[in-house]
């Protein structure tokens, strides 16, 4: 398709054409209406003028007869103007008046007639139109009184040409503007198309340039960029997952196989076999667990799962999770303290958020214990409202993670050197990050001086909750709930 053909098919151009048609029709209607009205008005004026003249002359005739009449006509004919007069005798001869001749039709006519006549002017004669009334008097005399209507005709012509020019101008500018806007639009869209083609060809590298105007095309471009980001993330996620599966799932599979093979090779008694089988099952269970966690994360990150859950109280979920882990913490010589002001209800998957909190508590117990000094053997779980988001912070007093390694710690399967000896799949934090992202929040790692503080946030999702953030609903809740909930051991 050629560029010009494309241009004619743009919405902008078609809309312009439509507007031209609509405005043209409306303009024509207005002009026609005005024209018709003006014509009627002028005709009525002419009629009444002729009538008035006739009445005046009739009075003169009644008073002074033919002589008085012809005298008056002579006077009136002398004054310049558009009025026409002619008094004829019975043989159609001109007695007095500013009309020179009378045609046979006019002579035979009765009442009002429109006719063409010639009158001197501009160095010769010119043809003009007039409307006259023919009145028959006694003795075969005829009185013809009328008005020149050439001006009315000229006025009509003027309006006609004005209408024509106006419509022509409208059409030309309309089409012109349509073409211009269409061309501009087309250029920008073509630009977008070209750029996105380039980005796709380059494997999602680079983004569409924004002009910062914030208009609809700019917003479309921003949206395109958002889509590219998402596609890139998904592609990257897929690559990561396959790499990780290759690495981290094959290793335990290999271990499993080696163990079974070794048991077969070494032989031995029934107890030996039983032990080997039990170990194999345990290894298998561990693999299944890793696999489930991976699928879960992938599922969340692919966006296949939407946050459709019901509203729930985050504080209660946190308290429950803390209660679940509290005996384990105690067994490690740690305590869990839950603090938090009441927060707005969260809409989301309670199970996932509980799992995220559980994972973080699990980590805090695993890594928080060994370095704890006797005064700070506590794990703190704090919940706080931060604007539209709710932040859940879990801090321990363990070894912490060096600032440079924090980004890496959030990656899938990453187990920092210090933790290699601990059990776990290395998916805990990734799962937390995925849960947070699914709920419109994020995860950050901070220094707890000493120790690690993991803050993950979730969004209050529904806008009603956002609006009522400072409203009575929340204030009322505060009265119901303890401002600080504490599970301490």
């Amino acid at each position, binding site marked *: 398709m050629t560029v010009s053909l494309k241009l004619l098919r743009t919405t902008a151009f078609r809309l312009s054409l439509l507007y031209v048609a609509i405005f043209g029709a409306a303009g024509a209607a207005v002009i026609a209406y005005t024209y018709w009205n003006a014509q009627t008005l002028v005709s009525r004026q002419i009629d009444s003028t002729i009538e008035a003249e006739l009445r005046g002359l009739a009075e003169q005739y009644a008073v002074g007869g033919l002589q008085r009449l012809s005298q008056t006509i002579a006077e009136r004919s002398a004054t310049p103007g558009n009025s026409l007069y002619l008094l004829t005798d019975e043989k159609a001869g001109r007695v007095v008046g500013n009309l020179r001749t009378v045609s046979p039709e006019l002579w035979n006519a009765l009442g009002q007639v429109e006719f063409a006549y010639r009158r001197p002017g501009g160095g010769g004669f010119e043809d003009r139109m007039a409307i006259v009334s023919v009145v028959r008097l006694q003795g075969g005399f005829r009185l013809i009184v009328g008005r020149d209507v050439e001006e009315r005709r000229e006025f009509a012509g003027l309006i006609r040409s004005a209408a024509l020019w106006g419509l022509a101008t409208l059409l030309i500018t309309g089409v012109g503007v349509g073409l211009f806007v269409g061309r501009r639009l087309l250029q920008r869209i073509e630009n977008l198309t070209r750029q996105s083609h380039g980005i796709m060809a380059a494997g999602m590298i680079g983004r569409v340039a924004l002009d910062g105007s914030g208009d609809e095309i700019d917003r479309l471009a921003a949206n395109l960029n958002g889509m590219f980001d998402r596609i890139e993330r998904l592609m990257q996620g897929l690559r990561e997952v396959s790499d990780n599966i290759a690495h981290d799932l094959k290793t335990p599979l290999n271990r499993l196989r080696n163990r079974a093979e070794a048991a077969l090779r070494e032989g031995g008694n029934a107890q030996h076999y039983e032990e080997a089988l039990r170990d194999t099952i345990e290894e298998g269970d561990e693999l*299944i667990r890793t696999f489930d966690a991976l699928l879960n994360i992938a599922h969340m990150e692919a966006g296949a799962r939407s946050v459709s859950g019901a509203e729930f109280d985050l504080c209660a979920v946190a308290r429950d999770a803390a209660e679940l882990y509290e005996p384990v913490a105690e067994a490690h010589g740690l305590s869990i303290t839950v603090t938090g002001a009441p927060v707005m209800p969260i809409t989301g998957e309670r199970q996932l958020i509980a799992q995220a909190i559980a994972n973080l508590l699990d980590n805090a117990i695993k890594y928080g214990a060994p370095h704890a000094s006797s005064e700070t053997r506590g794990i703190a779980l704090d919940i706080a409202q931060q604007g539209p988001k709710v932040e859940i912070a879990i801090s321990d007093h363990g070894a912490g993670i060096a600032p440079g390694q924090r980004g890496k710690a959030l990656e899938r399967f990453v187990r920092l050197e210090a933790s290699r000896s601990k059990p776990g799949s290395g998916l805990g934090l990734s799962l937390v990050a995925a849960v947070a992202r699914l709920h419109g929040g994020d995860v950050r790692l901070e220094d707890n001086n000493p120790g690690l503080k993991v803050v993950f946030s979730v969004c209050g999702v529904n806008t009603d909750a956002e609006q009522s953030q400072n409203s009575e609903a929340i204030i009322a809740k505060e009265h119901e709930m303890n401002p600080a909930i504490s599970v301490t051991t």
Partner: protein
Amino acid sequence: MRVLIIEDDAKTAAYLEKALKESGHSAEVASDGEAGLDAAASSEFDVLIVDRMLPKQNGLAVIQALRKSGVQTPALVLSALGAVDDRVQGLRAGGDDYLAKPFAFSELLARVEALARRASPEESTSRYVVGDLVLDRLTHKVTRKGESLPLQPREYRLLEYLMKHAGQVVTRTMLLENVWDYHFDPQTNVIDVHISRLRAKIDKNFETPLLQTVRGAGYMIGDGVA
């Protein structure tokens, strides 16, 4: 106990049938949705094990059809889809329990036995008694040999669930699902610590331990006679 296994994978079905028979139950196998529906509707079973993805008619549709025709046999849904929302969908469709593949047989057996127990009408009892341990569901009081045992609310619920299934193996996942309402794997064996706390309260000062650990499966409460 008569169990109907509706499962299209012949190996899995044969494995389940054999293992259930070894555990002292009788089992039948139907290899697709329609056959399963016919079998379940025509004869009496105590529990149905229904695979979610079946040829001809999917597992959830089979359960729905059965419920519509008035068959209330408890059903355990087996599925490779193990995410929380899949589980919710399965339970909403009329399944009584949901187990994701791959699973441990001990887990399946414990759940099947719990389902069969649920179907029997002793549900509304107000007192659970195991040996000399008594749990009063109306006053929430627990006594052993007439001696009152102070339990935390969660410990009470844990004991209540165990005693409801007295004489049956209860797995850690079952406890996590039914006592905590958590449908995920908490990695560390948190349940074990809760159990040992509970054990310290109900068994420590008495000669016969009632709360037993079943190796490789879970826990069971019983006075050793049952």
